[in-house]
Structure formats: C-alpha cells, structure tokens
C-alpha cells in the first residue's frame, strides 16, 4: 500500500492525526492523547487495480480483469481500506467512571483498489 505523497494521484493511505487536546476532548479521554484518523484517497485506473498489493481481494482482481478487457458493465474501482487495527481507549463516562475499551478495526493501515 502506498502512503500519500503531496503529489500522488494513485490510491494511497493519507495519514491524519487527531490530537484530542485540539478538539477539547482531552478532559474526558484519558488515553490515548489522540488517534490516527487515516483514510484512503486517490484514483484506481484500470491498469492498477488487480496488481499484487493493490487488489482488495480475488473478487476485485477478477472484476478488474473484466474491466481491463473493457467488457461492458464494469463498475468503478474504489480506493478503500484493506487493513485496519484496533484502538484502545480509556475515557470518563458521564458518571465519572473510567471505561477501558478496545475498538476493533478502527485505524486504517493500508489501502487498495477494490
């Protein structure tokens, strides 16, 4: 998966860090201090989709071969997350109790063309 560079147009992973202090949430979220709200952006031209490392799945590889042979009915390829990891959060709830929870599949780690 590619990490976005300033001039990249291809499907890539855009890093974006949200600091809870900047949004005034550091008073109720104890840990972490912020989180990576990464997201996928960029284009999926036909010749890219389906190449190793970019296809989200075998299904998309077949779909892209269909498109590459310009058989009618091919849809659009989308730049989507292909790998995510959990985020552990420790926060005060409205009763001032501390809740520790793990949110599965919260942080996007890789993008690909579906």
């Amino acid at each position, binding site marked *: 998966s590619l990490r976005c560079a300033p001039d990249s147009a291809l499907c890539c992973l*855009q890093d*974006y860090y*949200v600091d809870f202090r*900047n*949004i005034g*949430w550091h*008073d*109720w979220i*104890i840990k972490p201090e912020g*989180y990576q*709200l990464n*997201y*996928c*952006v960029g*284009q*999926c*031209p036909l010749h890219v989709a389906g190449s190793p490392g970019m296809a989200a799945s075998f299904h998309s590889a077949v779909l892209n071969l269909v498109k590459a042979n310009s058989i009618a009915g091919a*849809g*659009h*390829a*989308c*730049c*989507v997350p292909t790998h995510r990891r*959990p985020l552990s*959060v*420790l*926060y*005060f*709830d*409205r*009763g*001032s*109790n*501390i*809740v*520790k*929870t*793990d*949110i*599965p599949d*919260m942080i996007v780690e890789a993008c690909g063309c579906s």
Partner: protein
Amino acid sequence: GGMAMGCPGCGVPTPAPGPALLELAKRQLLDRLHLSERPNVTRAVPRAAVASALRRLHPGRAQGYEIVSFAETGPYTTGTLVPELRFELSQAPARDVEIVEAQLWLPLRAPGANVTLQVMGPDGTALSTRRLAAGTGGWLTFSLPPGLHGLPSLHLALLCHGCTHPDGTRLLSPGPARRPFVVARAQARARGRRVGKR
C-alpha cells in the same frame, strides 16, 4: 482517469483535512464508543486515584471492556452504625455487552489483630469475606457478583469481625490516590451461532 476527489462508486467524497474531517473523526469515535455525544465529566476524580486504579487494571487484556467506578467522596459512613461505600455504576457501554466479573478494591490499614472483613450487599447479604492477618494492609480485592453491576448505583457495607468496632470502613486508609473502587469486566454477549447458507 480525471475522476474528482473521492470515489464515485463509493459515493463518499473524501473531505479535505480541516474542520469537516475533524467532525467526521469525532462522529466516528463517538459511534464506535456507542455514545450519542461526548460525556460531560461532572464529578472530577483525582488523577492520583485514576493512576492508582489504572495500575490495577488487567494490563494487555485482550479485546473487551473494563469499567472502573470510584466510591463517592465524603465520609464513608451515613451516620448509622453500619457504614457504607456508595458507587454510581455505569451500565455496559453497549447492549450486546455483558458484565462477566466484578471486583471491589479497598485500600486497607494493617489491623492490630487477625480480623475478618465482610462486604455486605444492599440487602444485607454477605457478598464477600476475607481474613486479614495482623499487620498486613495495602490494596485488597473482594469478588462481587457480576449481576450487581446491573444496578444504577451500588451501596456496600463493610463489617469487621474481631475489630474493636464493627465499622469496617475504619480499616480504610483513604487518600487522594487511595479511593476504593469497583472494576467490572465486560465482554461481547455470545451470540447464537449464525449458519451461513449459500
């Protein structure tokens, strides 16, 4: 080629970094925490008490919830003979989550003699009992029935057998970092096995 930012097939234009993306981040985090809006922390808990409690959570525990409720401040007795500890419990953060384990943590002074400390439930039943040897103090845990955590608030009494006075809270050694608390561990409710039909 020549597609605008975002993906027509997905129908979700990618917002440019800035206020719109921050709002998206806030919304996403609140949704995943099953919260409709950010909580307003009314009752501040001393950071020392928080740090002390966090050191006792299960470090590195696999996926799941843990909820720490601190005893209300102020005198641990309600003026009656039987003292009590009061906790405002929060319900499990999501409907498909159940409390599987609950423990009461007490910061205790070392008793002068061997004593037995009993935790009594709201209806006067003995929930948990532990013997304390003379001279041993520190943080001690008492297992509680998980079902108690379904109550909106929890009132526990402490009785001491063998102490000069039955008021078990006299054994507590409270302080900013030594606030009694209840830790409840929750996990996703086991759903019925779904059979996929092709």
